């Protein structure tokens, strides 16, 4: 049977607060200026959401200083962050890293993250699909050596969680960011830039080993994928709403361009897709917690569907804005870049379809 796919009243209220906070603190022109190297928004916004709503710890149990929010609620936050392409490490630190650490019972580090003062990043390529083998990093005598490319959320991280091989064993190591070489890359999505990390005999503390390390990474990535689907719904929704508003007021040939039937049908189809994406993302949020096979199916379904819908929505947003959608000045490009990067993030839809085939013997 299907779980409750609607938004509860609590969730509606949460959305309202988050939306108001982001409206006041995340203007799109400051997101755009991150592409020109001004990263002030990233720190300011993280501070604002930490102080005003304790968002960084929303998913942590109350015993660790968090709000004990469910995945359903965290998903609502993700939708809102997607709607403004917020440049903060919520997905990478508060969802993925917290989940991995939670799996290892790393309460001290989690407590340190609760007030937003510590930010954590899992050192896997942001394109990783489901798990990692850790083969690019070797561990020996409490030190790690090696490199990991295209890690999201590492730019402002204090602690890096590094999967690495000790002999034949996968381990998960906590490394102080100061002990790692973090190279910013010019990224397709500068509101969530990726970094290349290099470790040269960096001091590390082991927090998991073997199956335990594997599970810690996998469960972090599974939760991340589920939440990413809700971010994608938020991105798609903004694109749809913005485009609908634009085609109503933009006139050509003496008519609003939204009165042309081809435009109307495209937007109606897009609405159908976004509405369906919401059902898929909600379902993933409802089922993801136990991390079992139904959770994996629900997440794969959501990722297969929502990734492409967000890209489609952003692409339609550009096209139906005509020339203005191609300009730097209009915020649409921020959503296109986020949507496309999100499609590659944590596995492409094609990979999730292949996984669905395997999970369902299709």
């Amino acid at each position: 049977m299907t779980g409750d796919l609607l938004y509860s009243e609590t969730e509606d209220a949460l959305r309202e607060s988050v939306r108001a906070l982001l409206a006041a603190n995340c203007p799109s022109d400051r997101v755009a200026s991150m592409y020109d190297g001004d990263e002030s928004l990233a720190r300011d916004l993280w501070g604002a959401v930490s102080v005003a709503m304790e968002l960084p710890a929303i998913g942590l149990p109350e015993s660790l200083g968090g709000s004990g929010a469910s995945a359903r609620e965290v998903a609502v936050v993700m939708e809102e962050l997607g709607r403004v392409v917020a440049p903060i490490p919520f997905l990478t630190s508060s969802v993925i890293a917290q989940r991995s650490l939670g799996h290892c019972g790393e309460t001290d580090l989690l407590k340190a993250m609760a007030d937003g003062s510590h930010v954590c990043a899992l050192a896997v390529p942001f394109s990783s699909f489901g798990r990692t083998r850790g083969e690019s990093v070797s561990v020996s005598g409490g030190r790690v050596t090696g490199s990991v490319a295209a890690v999201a959320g590492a730019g402002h991280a204090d602690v890096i969680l590094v999967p690495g091989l000790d002999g034949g064993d996968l381990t998960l190591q906590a490394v102080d960011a100061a002990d790692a070489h973090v190279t910013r890359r010019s990224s397709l999505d500068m509101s969530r830039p990726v970094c290349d990390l290099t470790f040269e005999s960096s001091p590390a503390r082991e927090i998991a080993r073997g199956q335990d390390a594997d599970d810690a990474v996998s469960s972090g990535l599974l939760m991340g994928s589920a939440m990413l689907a809700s971010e994608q719904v938020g991105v798609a929704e903004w694109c749809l709403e913005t485009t609908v508003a634009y085609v109503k007021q933009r006139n050509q040939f003496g008519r609003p361009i939204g009165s042309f039937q081809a435009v109307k049908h495209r937007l109606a189809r897009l609405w159908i897709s976004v509405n369906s994406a919401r059902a898929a993302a909600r379902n993933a949020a409802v089922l993801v917690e136990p991390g079992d096979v139904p959770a994996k199916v629900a997440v794969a379904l959501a990722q297969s569907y929502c990734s492409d819908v967000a890209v489609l929505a952003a692409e339609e947003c550009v096209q139906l804005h005509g020339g203005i959608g191609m300009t730097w000045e209009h915020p649409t490009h921020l959503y296109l870049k986020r949507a496309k990067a999100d499609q590659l993030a944590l596995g492409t839809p094609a990979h999730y379809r292949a996984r669905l085939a395997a999970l369902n013997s299709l």
Partner: protein
Amino acid sequence: MSASADLARAFLADWDPATTRLESLRARYDAGLAWVSRPEGVGGLGASRDDQREVDGIFAAAGFPDNNAAANGIGLGMAAPTIFAVGTDEQKQRLLRPLWTGEEIWCQLFSEPGAGSDLANIATRATRTDGGWIVSGQKVWTSNAHNAVRALLVARTDPDLPKHEGLTYFAMNMLDPGVEVRPLRQLTGEAEFNEVFLTDVFVPDEDLLGSVNDGWRVAMTTLASERVSIGNSDADIEEAMVDVVERTWRSAPQRTRDVMQDRFLRLWVDARVADLTAARMKQQLAAGRPGPEGSALKVTFARLAQELSGLELELLGADGLGYGDWAMVRPTAVVFTGRDAGYRYLRAKGNSIEGGTTEILLNIIAEKVLGLPPEHRPDKGMAWKDSPR
């Protein structure tokens, strides 16, 4: 245990299984146990809607004859709600009992050759005569017309008004000698529908439903119930197309599956997400927040039925080149499962046409949901008789 259920048990305790089927059904109706949420005196008890399932279960468990609802879908699904909404007390008394018992099968005379998507363009004329109306015209796409004794008819009563305003709704007698029913054969070989030719059919005043020239409004109520049920029907009534095709998929050769994997999985994902979307719509309805998702789901399910059934033939290869039977039969219901893939492919083409074309539904979503401007309509506000056609 509801009060309705108590009444049902009490009724059954008195019921003699030797009673004829029809007498049994009439007695159940008269006891208010037909549609319990409807008012007393017309088959109901004024009880909660939620009681119905329980009551039906009790009757079924007792081996009580059922009213063969499938054979009178239009009567129960469209005529009854319409009569309840706009019928007079006399009409309710006269029409609803034989409708519910299945004595009177109903059909729906809406579409015409010139009034498909543009349903308000109906040209069938109803002209005043002594004690009633004389109706002439041609209707098409009428399911069940060959079994029906009553029809929901929409006809034009005032051509001087704009097209939506001069229509009137009737409960027409299909046994009138002026009614000719011809089977309409479809591309599947079958004749699921009919053409109905009306030549000077007399409809007495007592069979007028609602007010004169108010037929469009009434028809819209009727159609809204139809569309919700179509968008949603696959899931409830029969096995979904995706499940049928998933079975074919599993038995296709591995080589074929390899090359079609991504294509099949895309459709499979879309279908599973559509199921979730339908589930979410039902939750919204249950929460008292009806949305426009019915039209959207119909668009999605039509597309999926077409693409999946098309893919299925490709999976079948040589077997896909066969076809069950082209004989012109008259099916009692449309069932995709249990038929061959060729039938599914052809019949599914109608999914995006019947009950509102995909194009019309997309217009509705664009205009009603997104608030985009309406299409240019050169006939807007003109007298129907003067408008371009």
